[in-house]
């Protein structure tokens, strides 16, 4: 279980994340949704220790940790692929750094690439593929971290509906079959509703949790489900009224 308590952060005077608590059960799938610029990426950076937090504490499996940098895989909002490496080499990077032999990690990368529709582009440089393909490669790299906790910041934002659908299924698989604990940011409410065990609606900055909804709809879900449609309208209304202007 991941327990986050009272995390705060300000940038030069203005608070960006304000006293956020969060509990993600082991093997849970928590999705965060909130207005653009509300502080989601900053929050993830705080969790990962990429930014120092002003206040707050993190506990993972009962133990207090300063941050999740050694515990979680993190897919940042921008792809951050190395321009001089081919896609497969980019994806293999975490395994390479962990010292895995290419022979072993190569197979895993290949399977991921097949699943992500990147087969045939292993040797392409990031500048030679489309934006969506770069995003998928970054996702592949994140999955190569091989960690139990996965933080995803808008992982599917550059993908078309069909590819997105397929990768959503893959993310579910990750949770169910590979027992990962997932924390994800998305702007797509449908995506959130299809995937989340728990949905957090966030406020404009300073970011706070406005609503916490447990979704007990069983998988596989479908957006026609009236329960989901109802939640969708509630979430939309909430986001709408939060808007200052």
């Amino acid at each position, binding site marked *: 279980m991941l327990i986050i308590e009272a995390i705060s952060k300000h940038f030069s005077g203005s608070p960006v994340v304000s006293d956020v608590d969060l509990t993600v059960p082991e093997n849970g799938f928590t999705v965060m949704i909130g207005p653009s610029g509300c502080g989601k990426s900053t929050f993830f950076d705080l969790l990962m220790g*990429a930014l120092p937090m002003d206040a707050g504490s993190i506990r993972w499996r009962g133990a207090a940790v300063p941050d999740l940098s050694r515990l979680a895989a993190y897919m940042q909002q921008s792809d951050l692929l190395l321009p001089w490496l081919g896609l497969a080499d980019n994806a293999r990077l975490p395994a*390479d750094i962990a010292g895995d032999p290419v022979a072993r990690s190569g197979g895993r990368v290949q399977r991921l690439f097949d699943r992500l529709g990147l087969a045939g582009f292993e040797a392409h*440089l990031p500048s030679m593929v489309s934006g969506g393909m770069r995003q998928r490669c970054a996702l592949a790299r994140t999955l190569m971290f091989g960690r139990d906790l996965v933080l995803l910041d808008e992982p599917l934002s550059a993908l078309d509906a069909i590819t997105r659908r397929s990768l959503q299924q893959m993310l579910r698989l990750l949770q169910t079959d590979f027992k990962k604990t997932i924390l994800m940011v998305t702007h797509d409410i449908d995506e959130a509703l299809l995937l989340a065990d728990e949905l957090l609606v966030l406020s404009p900055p300073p970011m706070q949790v406005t609503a916490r909804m447990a979704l007990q709809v069983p998988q596989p879900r479908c957006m026609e489900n009236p329960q989901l449609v109802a939640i969708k309208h509630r979430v939309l209304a909430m986001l709408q009224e939060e808007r200052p202007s």
Partner: protein
Amino acid sequence: MKRSWTIPAGILLVMAGIWEAGSRLSGLPDFILPPPSRILQVAVGHAPQLLPHAGITLVEILAGIALALAVAVPLAVAMFARPSLENALAPFLVASQAIPVFALAPLLVVWMGYGLASKVLMAAVIIFFPITVSLLEGFRSCDPAYRVLFRLMGADFWQTLRRLYWPWALPYFFAGLRVGVSVATIGAVIGEWVGAQQGLGYLMIQSNARLKTDWVFAAILWLSLMGLALWHTVGWLERHCMSWKDRSTQTSQGGSIR
């Protein structure tokens, strides 16, 4: 980039022509500025005498470059890894560039004698500096977002160096190396100021004392050719090491620039 030899050769010809005509018309005597025809005549006609000297100097240059690289790269890495070290060493590195040879020559004589070592050292002192400075600036220019990524992947400093900082700083490294190999020629010549019995620098001093200015310039011609060869070698190496840039020039991200 495709390199055509015709344009520089053309410019060279025109310049040589002007110089030739100028030196014939202006009455500037040969022993101050020999005409290019004379220089060429010596440089080519006396190649058998010049080449052994050129060979010695080339060895010194190459050894100087090797030594400079062996110092510059670890130094830049160390200073990047420990900014306090940079802080501590930078003054000495900068000061090292302010010391003229003749002040060092007596010391070199005492410590290293008259062998190759002192020349190689002199060349290296001159070459290592641009490489170190450029490489350090290159390491520093690395995008912090990538640094974070590597830290999150659990990479230690050496892994990050090898897989991120080094490739990132490569263009800086090559800029420094280009400067380094170009000044390497004069580095070796300056090294030959003292204690040399051969080499183009020695030949130049000797020819100068004997008022054989044409020989001095013929030696310069050979030196320049060596410098150029090194320069192009670096260019080739750069294109080779950064071939990914060529591969990605025509892309939907980059586009072709007309």
